[in-house]
């Protein structure tokens, strides 16, 4: 009997592993394709020969603008996908997104403060990042007041912080100069990768990469956190400590992205759903696929955002336009299969 058990484990593991490897390869190839596309597409026509030949202007556009923009699209999308998976798993809610504990409203408020008080693009990025992290820390602190450590308390605290930040944002908007400041607040909230340049992205990308790597290593804890508090505790999980660490890491990563790009809708929600429809479960592969899918979606959407019309369009339009039909298609297809 032992032998048969072993062979079942092996055969199962090998078919799943094989399938996952194939899907992983496909996703990586797709990501490389859209990234290459993103490097090639834009207002300023670039050619590989001229860059290699050392054309000063071509090189400058390629290295300071195209490269950094593509890097942010790929890594930013991946971060949003992975963090979306983390939020959905920890809150056991398929609709959970960074918004649920106040990330985006905090970032918007921070960006508005940056626009009104400082004005420089670096200041706006820093201020948005600080706003997002502060909002989440406030939500987590408020929820710590509940001794039982229920998950619903965090969600309620998040809603309270979100409402507070929205109100403050509204006040700031009324005082803003409608021609310049109000427009740039609105444009920031719509989200775009247009303002990304190589000088701004270094520290943000570093935060993203460190936090994401940590989250990937913590994947088993993230999945354990999806059990009831009591059940998780009896599986040896320090529920409140681990939840705090995981949520803080996810928040840092998402804040680092949205402070550069503004709010980008739908990727954090959609990428994990696509990944789950592929793997049919929640595991480390699902988490990695969420990241790959997120990168592909954001990079693809950004290519469309800068190539569809004469002017740059907000990237969220396209993340939703690509995302919604894809989600509906996969959901219906997934139903039929199972």
């Amino acid at each position, binding site marked *: 009997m032992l032998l048969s058990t*072993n062979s079942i484990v092996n055969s199962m593991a090998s078919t799943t592993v094989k399938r996952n490897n194939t899907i992983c390869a496909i996703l990586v190839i797709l990501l490389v394709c859209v990234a290459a596309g993103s490097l090639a597409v834009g207002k300023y026509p670039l050619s590989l020969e001229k860059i290699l030949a050392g054309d000063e202007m071509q090189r400058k556009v390629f290295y300071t603008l195209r490269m950094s923009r593509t890097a942010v699209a790929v890594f930013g999308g991946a971060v949003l996908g992975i963090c979306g998976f983390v939020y959905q798993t920890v809150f056991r809610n398929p609709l959970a997104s960074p918004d649920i504990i106040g990330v985006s409203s905090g970032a918007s408020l921070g960006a508005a403060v940056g626009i009104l008080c400082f004005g420089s693009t670096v200041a706006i990025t820093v201020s948005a990042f600080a706003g997002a992290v502060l909002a989440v820390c406030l939500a987590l602190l408020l929820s710590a007041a509940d001794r039982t450590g229920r998950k619903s308390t965090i969600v309620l605290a998040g809603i309270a912080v979100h409402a507070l930040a929205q109100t403050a944002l509204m006040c700031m908007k009324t005082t803003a100069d409608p021609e310049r400041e109000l427009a740039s607040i609105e444009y920031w909230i719509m989200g775009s990768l247009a303002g990304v340049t190589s000088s701004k992205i270094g520290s943000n990308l570093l935060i993203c990469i460190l936090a994401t790597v940590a989250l990937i290593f913590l994947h088993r804890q993230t999945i354990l956190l999806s059990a009831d508090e*009591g059940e998780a505790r009896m599986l040896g999980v320090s529920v409140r400590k681990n939840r705090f660490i995981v949520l803080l890491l996810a928040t840092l990563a998402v804040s680092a992205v949205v402070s550069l790009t503004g709010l980008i809708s739908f990727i954090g929600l959609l990428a994990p759903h696509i990944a789950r429809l592929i793997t049919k479960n929640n595991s480390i592969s699902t988490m990695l696929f969420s990241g790959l899918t997120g990168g592909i979606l954001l990079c693809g959407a950004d290519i469309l955002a800068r190539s569809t019309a004469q002017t740059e369009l907000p990237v969220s339009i396209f993340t939703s336009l690509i995302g919604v039909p894809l989600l509906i298609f996969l959901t219906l297809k997934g139903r039929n299969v199972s």
Partner: protein
Amino acid sequence: MTKSAILSVSRVGAGYNGKQVIHDLSFSVLEHEVVGLLGVNGCGKTTLLKSICGIIPYDGNIEICGQNLRHLNARQLARLCSYIPQRSGISIDISALDVVLMGFNPELKILETPDAAMRKKAMEMLSLVKLDSRADDNYSSFSEGQKQLCILARSMVRECSLMLMDEPESALDFGGRYFMLDAVKKATAQRPCSALVTLHDPQLALNVCTRILLIKSGCIISEIEPGKSGISEIEQQLTKIYGPLSVRQCAGKNGKSQFVLIKE
């Protein structure tokens, strides 16, 4: 030789939102024992188990393997005892094998993942509960009974000293109930461990438990030892909880004498 106590509960009270549900409970569970908790709905069985897990705050003193529960952290506690909740809170899509592998968490460092030996052991447990062919299937697509078997496999994947089970068989079929409790009984016979199980079926409890605690309104009103207590005494005690009933003892085909309950 005296058996050592795995669990000792002294003067424990607990409740929710300031309303006390269990009052001043004291008892102990010795090694090799399967202790059943019987009582009507809402009498405090689950509250008692939750306080022993340290999930809800309690007054009084609880010791597990000689260690004060208040001094144990989640990891230390989970190494000593396993817990089957009334309903598992897992509602995300996850494979049955991954659910069973969760049981190894107390042995793993925070960043470690289960190794091949653990996976093998997890598969053995799944084949014990006859779910090995569905190891890769989605746990949330299982029936409630299959989920309970899967959680049983998870709780037995490591050898804990104390198994706490809150109606572990509530969704199982007739055969499954006896199968589950026999598996628990076998484990307690093989090694120095014990189980504390809340049950709703007094007949099942009489036939599998070494001792039964009867709980009414948050207090232990009496104790039955199916092997030792007389039939009329058992009848009398159970009547206090379930109303008029008759207890009979009869032998099955293999000649083993079993209790049969008839509700009057």
